[in-house]
C-alpha cells in the first residue's frame, strides 16, 4: 500500500537494498568491475613471479614444488647482476639511454620540422617527396633487414650506437602525424608572422613547436619505448658486449645464468623494465590521449 504524506505526495514503498541495486542497474557495473579486476589479477600474475623470484636464492628458485613468495628474502641476485665482473648491466643502461634519447630527439626535430615544411612551406618536389615518404611505410622492416645491414656496414656504423640511431633519424609516421596536426593550426598565424618579417625558422620555433606539443609528446613516448625495447635491429648491428643495449645484455645474461642462476635473469629483468615503466607512469595520462591521437589518425 502506497503511503500518502501530509502534503499529498504518494510515497514509494521502501525497497530493500538489493532490490534497489538491481532496479537501478548498478549491479551490472559491479559485476563488470569485478570481472575487470579478476582479469587484472590474471594479467599481473606473471609479473608477481618476476618480482618475487628476483628476491629468491639460487636453490629457492628451482625448488619443486615452487612457491610464489621467497623462502628467504635476499638481494643476492641484484648484487650479482650489478657486479661488473659478471654482467655488463650499468654499461648497457648507459648505451640504452644514449640510443633512446638520441633517437627521440632526432625524431622530434625531424618530425616537427617536416610536419611544418610539408604543411606550410613550399619547396621543389614537395608533393612527390611526401607521397614517397608515405609509400615507404608499406614496406615491412623485415624486407629491408638484410640489405639495410649491408648499407650500415658500408657506412662503417656496424657495432656502434650510431648504427642504431642514424637509420631511425627520420620517422615517416612522425612526419605524417605532425603534418596533419600543423594543418589544424590556422594558416593566418603563419601569414601574419611572415608579414611581420619572421623567417621560417623563427616561425617554426615560436609558433609551430609550442603548438604541436601534444603530438610531439605522444611521438616522444612511443619512440622512446620503441627504441628502448628494440631487439632485432640491435641484435644484427651490435656484437661487442660493451656496446650492447639492455635487451641484448639480458639475452646474454639468460644464456650465462639461465642454467643455474635464473634469479639473476629475474633481477636483471626487473632492472631492465624500470626505465620504460617510469616513462609510462609519468606520462600515463598522455598515453591514452596519445594513442587516441596517433591511433585514430593513422
Amino acid at each position, binding site marked *: 500500500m502506497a503511503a500518502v504524506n501530509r502534503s499529498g505526495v504518494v510515497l514509494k514503498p521502501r525497497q530493500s537494498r538489493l532490490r534497489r541495486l538491481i532496479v537501478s542497474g548498478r549491479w551490472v557495473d559491479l559485476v563488470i568491475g569485478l570481472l575487470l579486476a579478476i582479469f587484472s589479477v590474471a*594479467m599481473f600474475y606473471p609479473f608477481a613471479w618476476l618480482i618475487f623470484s628476483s628476491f629468491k636464492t639460487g636453490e629457492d628458485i628451482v625448488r*619443486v614444488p615452487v612457491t610464489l613468495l621467497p623462502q628467504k628474502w635476499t638481494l643476492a641476485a641484484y648484487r650479482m647482476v650489478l657486479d661488473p665482473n659478471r654482467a655488463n648491466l650499468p654499461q648497457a643502461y648507459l648505451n640504452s639511454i644514449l640510443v633512446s634519447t638520441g633517437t627521440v630527439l632526432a625524431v622530434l626535430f625531424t618530425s616537427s620540422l617536416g610536419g611544418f*615544411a610539408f604543411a606550410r612551406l613550399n*619547396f621543389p618536389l614537395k608533393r612527390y617527396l611526401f607521397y614517397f615518404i608515405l609509400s615507404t611505410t608499406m614496406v*615491412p622492416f623485415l624486407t629491408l633487414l638484410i640489405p639495410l645491414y649491408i*648499407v650500415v656496414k658500408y657506412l662503417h656504423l656496424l657495432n656502434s650506437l650510431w648504427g642504431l640511431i642514424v637509420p631511425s633519424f627520420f620517422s615517416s609516421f612522425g612526419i605524417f602525424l605532425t603534418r596533419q596536426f600543423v594543418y589544424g593550426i590556422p594558416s593566418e598565424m603563419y601569414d601574419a608572422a611572415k608579414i611581420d618579417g619572421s623567417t621560417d625558422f623563427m616561425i617554426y620555433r615560436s609558433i609551430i613547436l609550442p603548438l604541436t606539443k601534444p603530438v610531439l609528446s605522444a611521438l616522444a613516448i612511443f619512440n622512446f619505448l620503441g627504441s628502448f625495447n628494440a631487439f632485432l635491429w640491435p641484435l644484427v648491428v651490435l656484437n661487442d658486449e660493451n656496446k650492447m643495449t639492455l635487451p641484448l645484455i639480458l639475452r646474454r645474461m639468460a644464456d650465462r645464468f639461465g642454467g643455474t642462476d635464473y634469479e639473476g635473469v629475474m633481477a636483471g629483468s626487473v632492472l631492465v623494465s624500470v626505465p*620504460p615503466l617510469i616513462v609510462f607512469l609519468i606520462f600515463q595520462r598522455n598515453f591514452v590521449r596519445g594513442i587516441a591521437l596517433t591511433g*585514430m589518425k593513422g
Partner: protein
Amino acid sequence: MTGTAKVLPVSGSPRTWWRRRGYSALGTVYGAFVLLFYLVFFLLPFGTAIWLSFHNWDFLTNPKYVGTRNFVKAVSDNYFWQALKVTATFSVFEIAIGVSLALLLALMLNQMKGKWQNLFLSLYYVPVVTPGVVSIYLWRWLYRPTGGAFNTFLASLHLPEQQFLNSPTQALWCIIAFVVWANVGGAAVILLAGMNDVPEHLYEAAKLDGAGFWRQFFKITMPLIRPVLAYQLVVSVIGTVQMFDVFFLMSGPGFSTRTLALYTYQLGFQSLNLGYGAAVSIIIFLLLLIATVVQLQRYQVTWEY
C-alpha cells in the same frame, strides 16, 4: 643562359624564378635532407633487396645472377611452406583471440567511470610497455615443464601437467597465449578510444526506442567503430607477420614455431644465403601488401591524407 630561358618562359634570373615560386630556403634544405635520408636508408636497401632476390650471395664470393631461381626454390621448399603455415596460423589465431578479447575488455571498460577506467586501462597496458625480451624470458620460466608456475598451478587444481614449449603441438599455442597477453592492452585502448568517439545521443535515442544492450552493440557500436577495428586488424596483421623476438627466444622443438620472419633472419645471418633470404622477404612484402589492400577494401576504409 639561353638554355634556362627555354625551360622558363618567363624571363629573369634564377633568383627571381625561385622567389616567384615561393620556395622556402628552410623547406628546400629540409627536403634535400629527407630525400638523401630516404634514398640511403630506404630506396637503396629496398632496391638491393629486389636485386639480391635474383642473385645468390654468401657475403664472401661475388654475387651470382640466378634469375627467378630463388622464387622457384621457395615454391618447392618445404621449410618455406612450413614457415608460411606457422606464420598464418599464428597470425590468424593471435588476432582472432586478441581482438575479440580486446573488444570485450573495451566494452566493459566503456561501462566504467573515468577513474576506474583509467586504472584498469593502465594495468592492462603494463605488458605492452614492458620490454619484449623481459616478458619472453619470464614466460619461458613460467612454462617450464618441471617446477614451472603454470604446471604448479595445474597440479594444485589436480589437472595433468603439460609439456608446453617442449611439445611440438603445444609450443605455438603457448606463444599465441603469450602474445595475446602482451598485446591485448594496446588493442583494448585503441578500441576504447573508438567507442568513446561514438556520440552519446545515439545510445539515448536507441534506449528510448527500447533497444537492449546487444541491439545497441550490433546496431550502433560495431558499425561506428568499424574504421578503428579495421585499422587495428591491419596493424595486427602487419605486426604479427613481422614479429621476431618471441620466435627467436621462445622457440619450440624443431621447426614447429619457425615463422617466415625467423626463417628470413636465419637465411640472411646464419646460413648466409642472402639471395634466398631476400627472396623470402620480398614474398613477405607481397603477401602483406595483398592482405592490407584486401582488408582495406573489405572494410571500405578511406585514409585521409
